[in-house]
C-alpha cells in the first residue's frame, strides 16, 4: 500500500531529528575536549607535539567525513572494539570535530597578543595557569563565531549517518520517501528541519562575529 505524506510520516521524520541533535551534541562535546588538547599541542613549544598535531589536523581536513566514518566503523572491530553503530558514528564524528575545532582554536590561541603570554610569564605563572587564566579565556572569545559556525557543519555532517544506516533525520526521510513515493515533499521537509536547527546557529555566529569586529 502506498501511503501519502501526512502527519504520521512527519512525526517519524521529526523523531529522526532526535538522533541528529544527540549525535551533534555528543560529537561537539567529545570532539571539543580532544580538539582542545590537539590545539594546545599545535601551539606548544615542543616541536614533535606541534608536528603530530599538524598531521592530525591535516588528516581530518584532507579526507571526506564519509570515509572517516567508514574507517572508524570498519576499523574499531579490527582493534577488538565491538560497538553499536551509533557509538561508532559518534566516535567518528567526534574525531572529525576534534580535527576541525583544533584548527579553529589554534588560530584563536595564536591571535591572542604575544604580550599577554609574556606578561603572564613575567608574573611567574606556569604553563597551566598561563593558559587557563590568561590565554584561553581570550582565545575563547575570539574563537566563538567560528566555533558556532562549525557546529552548523557538524549538524549537517550527521546526515552522513544515513549512509551507514542509522535512522536519523536524513535516513528517516529516505524511508518515508520510499513508502510515500513523494520524494520532493519529503526531502523538502527534511531540509526544512535541518534549516530550523542550523539557522539559529548561523545567526548567532554572524552576530558574534559582528560584535567581535566592532570591538576591534
Amino acid at each position, binding site marked *: 500500500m502506498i501511503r501519502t505524506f501526512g502527519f504520521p510520516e512527519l512525526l517519524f521524520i521529526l523523531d529522526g531529528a532526535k538522533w541528529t541533535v544527540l549525535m551533534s551534541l555528543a560529537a561537539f562535546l567529545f570532539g571539543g575536549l580532544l580538539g582542545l588538547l590537539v590545539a594546545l599541542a599545535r601551539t606548544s613549544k615542543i616541536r614533535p607535539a606541534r608536528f603530530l598535531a599538524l598531521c592530525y589536523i591535516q588528516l581530518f581536513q584532507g579526507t571526506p567525513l564519509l570515509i572517516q566514518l567508514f574507517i572508524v566503523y570498519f576499523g574499531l572491530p579490527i582493534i577488538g572494539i565491538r560497538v553499536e553503530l551509533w557509538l561508532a558514528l559518534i566516535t567518528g564524528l567526534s574525531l572529525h570535530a576534534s580535527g576541525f575545532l583544533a584548527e579553529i582554536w589554534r588560530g584563536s590561541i595564536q591571535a591572542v597578543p604575544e604580550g599577554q603570554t609574556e606578561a603572564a610569564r613575567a608574573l611567574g605563572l606556569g604553563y597551566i595557569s598561563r593558559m587557563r587564566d590568561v590565554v584561553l579565556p581570550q582565545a575563547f572569545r575570539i574563537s566563538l563565531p567560528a566555533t558556532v559556525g562549525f557546529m552548523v557543519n557538524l549538524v549537517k555532517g550527521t546526515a552522513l549517518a544515513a549512509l551507514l544506516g542509522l535512522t536519523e533525520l536524513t535516513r528517516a526521510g529516505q524511508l518515508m520517501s520510499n513508502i510515500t513515493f513523494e520524494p520532493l515533499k519529503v526531502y523538502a521537509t527534511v531540509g526544512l528541519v535541518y*534549516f530550523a536547527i542550523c539557522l539559529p546557529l*548561523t545567526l548567532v555566529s554572524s552576530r558574534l562575529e559582528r560584535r567581535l569586529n566592532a570591538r576591534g
Partner: protein
Amino acid sequence: MNYTFDFTPIFQAWGLLAQGAWATVYISAISMALGLVFGIVLTALRMAPLAPLRAFAIGYIELVRNTPFLVQVFFIYFGMPELGLRLNAMEAAILTMTLNCSAYIAEIVRSGVESIRPGQIEAGKALGLSTPDVYRFIVFRPAIRAVYPSLCSQFVLMMLNTSLVASISAQELTYAAQMIDNRTFRSFEVYFVLGAIYLVLSQLFSVGLSMIGRVYFSYPTK
C-alpha cells in the same frame, strides 16, 4: 587482534580507483568553475540596489548553507523528476555540487567585495575606465585575490564533498571503492586506501589552486 590485513585485492583493482579518481577531479573541476560563475552572479544580486533581488540571494544562500549536501543531492536526484526534471546520477551530482558551491562562494566573494574601498571605484571612474572595466579590474579581481585563500580551502572541502554523490551511484572515487568493497569484503582496507587517495587529491588541489592563484594574481599590490 587476530585480523590479517590484505591489501592485494585493492591494488589489483587500481584501474577502477584511477577511473574513479579522475571522475572525482572532473566533477569537482566543472562544479567549481560553474559554481564560481553562479557565485559571482549571486554576489552581485546579494549587493544589488533592488530589495527583492537581495532577499532572493540571501534566502538562497542561507537555505543552501543551512541544509546538508546529502539532502540537497537527494532532493535534486529523487525529487526533481516529480517536477519533470529527470537527470542521470552524474548530471544530478554536477548540478547539486554547482548549486551548493555557488552559495558558499557567494558568501566568500561578498566579503572580498566589501573589502574594496569606495575610493578605489571612484578613482577608477575618474581615470575614465568604463563601468564594466571598473568592476572587472578594480572590484572583482582584487576582491577575489583578497579572499583567494578561503576560496581555495572551500574548493578543497567541495572536492571532498563529492564523495557523497556515490550515494546516488554517480560513478566517482567513493563509488569505485564501494564496488571493490562489495567484491572483496575487505572493507577496512578499501576505505583506508580510499582515505589515502583523497588525502593526496586534497593536497594536489591545494597546491594546484595556489599555483593558479600565483599566476593569475601576479600583479603588484601597491
